[in-house]
């Protein structure tokens, strides 16, 4: 019996993109958040270069507001795969007075990550930053290229993007510019979950149903962690069975009520869902163009 290969076209496209990155750039880095999308990227990178090791480091911009489960997972994964893990703290920039922390009810460190990221890119001289953004996530991301050129300030010039025809990727840049690379641009949320299921990829525990102390605000469920999440006295804390569909900061990622304790059940839940993934992200709800604004300033 002949072993006939039949690769999922999305997976094949992503592997092709990873190989182009390594061939076209001097110092690539994978922006690793500990979320399902960046975990999927790591698996795809393994596949792209097997049996060699992934030929670039992971970079995590730690806001200090991350879920502890994500941080633990991040460290474990890097260790298991023998990858270099670079962590930069948003807190350092706050301490040095370089950025000012938001205050009040919806305070979040989401915007502050940009500055820390740009500093790290400059410090290491990274010329390609690989991220797990997908076009189906958000309307500004739907316009993103696979190789997206950023200037010295990390800015995205959305009205003047290089055309990408067929699968030819043009990574030519000038000194000081860098390229953001999105290998899973064409995947949907469901594609990612199905891939995690088929490949049996380990993900942080917060993606599965668990008991958590939470409170309700604006109809959404927030983690009750008074160190990093602002909560008013009147907002009562209750233990609920929840899981997270997307993993950002505790201060901007809401949970969903769920009984899904296995990956198969998570996939079922996503298939039946009537709310989009980023519907649980308060950082996108600030205004109609919230993501576009952030992207122009150098956000992921």
């Amino acid at each position, binding site marked *: 019996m*002949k*072993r*006939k*290969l*039949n*690769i999922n*076209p*999305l*997976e*094949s*496209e992503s*592997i*092709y993109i990873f*190989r*182009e990155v*390594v*061939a076209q750039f001097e110092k690539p880095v994978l922006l690793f958040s500990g979320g399902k999308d960046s975990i999927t990227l790591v698996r795809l990178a*393994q*596949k*792209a*270069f*097997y*049996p*060699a*090791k992934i030929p670039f480091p992971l970079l995590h911009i730690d806001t200090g507001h991350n879920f502890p489960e994500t941080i633990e997972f991040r460290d474990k994964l890097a260790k298991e795969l023998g990858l270099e893990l670079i962590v930069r703290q948003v807190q350092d920039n706050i301490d040095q007075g370089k950025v000012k922390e938001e205050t009040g009810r919806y305070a979040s460190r989401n915007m502050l990550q940009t500055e820390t990221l740009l500093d790290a890119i400059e410090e290491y001289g990274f010329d390609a930053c690989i991220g797990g953004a997908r*076009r*189906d996530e*958000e*309307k*500004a*991301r*739907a*316009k993103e290229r696979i190789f997206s050129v950023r200037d010295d300030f990390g800015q995205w010039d*959305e*009205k003047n*993007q*290089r*055309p*990408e*025809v*067929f*699968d*030819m990727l*043009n990574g*030519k*840049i*000038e000194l000081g510019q860098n390229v953001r690379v999105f290998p899973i*641009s*064409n995947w*949907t949320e*469901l*594609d990612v979950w199905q891939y995690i299921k088929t490949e049996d990829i380990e993900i942080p525990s917060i993606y599965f149903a668990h008991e958590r102390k939470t409170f309700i605000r604006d109809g959404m469920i927030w983690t009750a962690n008074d160190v990093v999440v602002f909560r008013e006295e009147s907002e009562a804390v209750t233990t609920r069975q929840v899981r997270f569909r997307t993993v950002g900061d505790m201060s901007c990622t809401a949970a969903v009520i769920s009984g899904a304790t296995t990956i198969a059940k998570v996939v079922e839940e996503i298939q039946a*869902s*009537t*709310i*989009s993934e980023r*519907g649980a992200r308060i950082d996108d709800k600030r205004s*109609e*163009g919230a993501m*576009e604004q952030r992207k122009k300033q150098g956000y992921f």
Partner: protein
Amino acid sequence: MQVLKIATAGSVDDGKSTLIGRLLYDTKSLTDDKLEAIEKSSQKKGYDYLDFSMATDGLMAEREQGITIDVAHIYWATKNKSYIIADTPGHIEYTRNMVTGASTSQMAIILVDARHGVVEQTKRHFYINALLRIKDVVVAINKMDLVDYSEDKYEEIKAEILKISKSNAYQNQKLTFIPLSALKGDNVVDFSDKMPWYKGETLLSHLESIEVGAVFEKSQARFPVQTVIRPKSEKFHDYRGYAGKLYGGALAVGDKVTVLPSGTSSTIEKIQFYNQTYDIANAGDSIAISLTDDVNVSRGDMIVKYNELPNTSKTVEATICWMDQTPLDLTSKYILQHGVHQVLAKVTALKSLVKPDLSMEEKAIENLKINQIGQVSFKLNQAIYSDNYADNKQNGAFVLIDVKTNTTAGVGFIG
């Protein structure tokens, strides 16, 4: 799951974004929060209907002006298939976006406003779809509600389009005509009771019936090498894998191959994908190949079957679609990127220009401006290993990169 990639084309205000929004809405692909956002902004604009274009126009400037500026990719799925739709802008100055969208698509939907019928741009849309050899084209005759759902009007437009397509170079194109109203939802997902004279399919049932993946079918195997994998670890000390994506055909262990440009012969020893090896790989597969002989292979080289050689040449003739504000300069060098292979190119002749009405202008042309299409000859500093676009899409196309700005300035179709 099968993924069907679709490009859309239409003039400004033909209702492309509305049609896509309607498809999403009627197939229940819009989530509650997205629907809520559409309701909100429709109300804000004072519309008494849902403005579905809001589902796809992602940039702030697009929402303000109510137009699509840049290609957006929209994802949705039915039980049978996943769909990716490239929503491409209709303005004449944005022809480049249409080429971009169509380059990765298997089929296209061309919108025609029933009130205006065939306009100059419609002809251009047909020309580009023929140039890119898009096999399945749906002609969506939209806004039928504004012409009283008139069968005569529909037949009149259909006849005119059939006349245009007869003059196209690509005669294997399959045209499907559907009268619809994206705004009202007639014949998009659900059959319209307003057009009992129409006996064909709805747009969705037609999309569902299309077979995915006919792109590579008959082409020969082309394996451009992206990078060489050398682990240099103890366990894989002697491993050397040529990593790349197979363009066309199939490759199997034991196949006798030729490596270009060296012309060295060897045999495929191993086809690796992650931690497994396979006997056969097919078009579209990203794999790593090992050869039985220790040959010199590096990025940009191409592995092919010894009896299926491509054209190896230091000159190339192609139809060029120019995409940059700075016109094609006959005196400067460009980087020609053919797949993953980059060489230097210089124009030797600019032969003819395709005018917006598709007639050919044969007189001497000085340059090629943005959105213009012309026949161009180049000489190259190194040979490329190519096929005619008609025989192998992936291996028959290239881009031109401006060496001063690094931008992708043009796309070429060989042959």
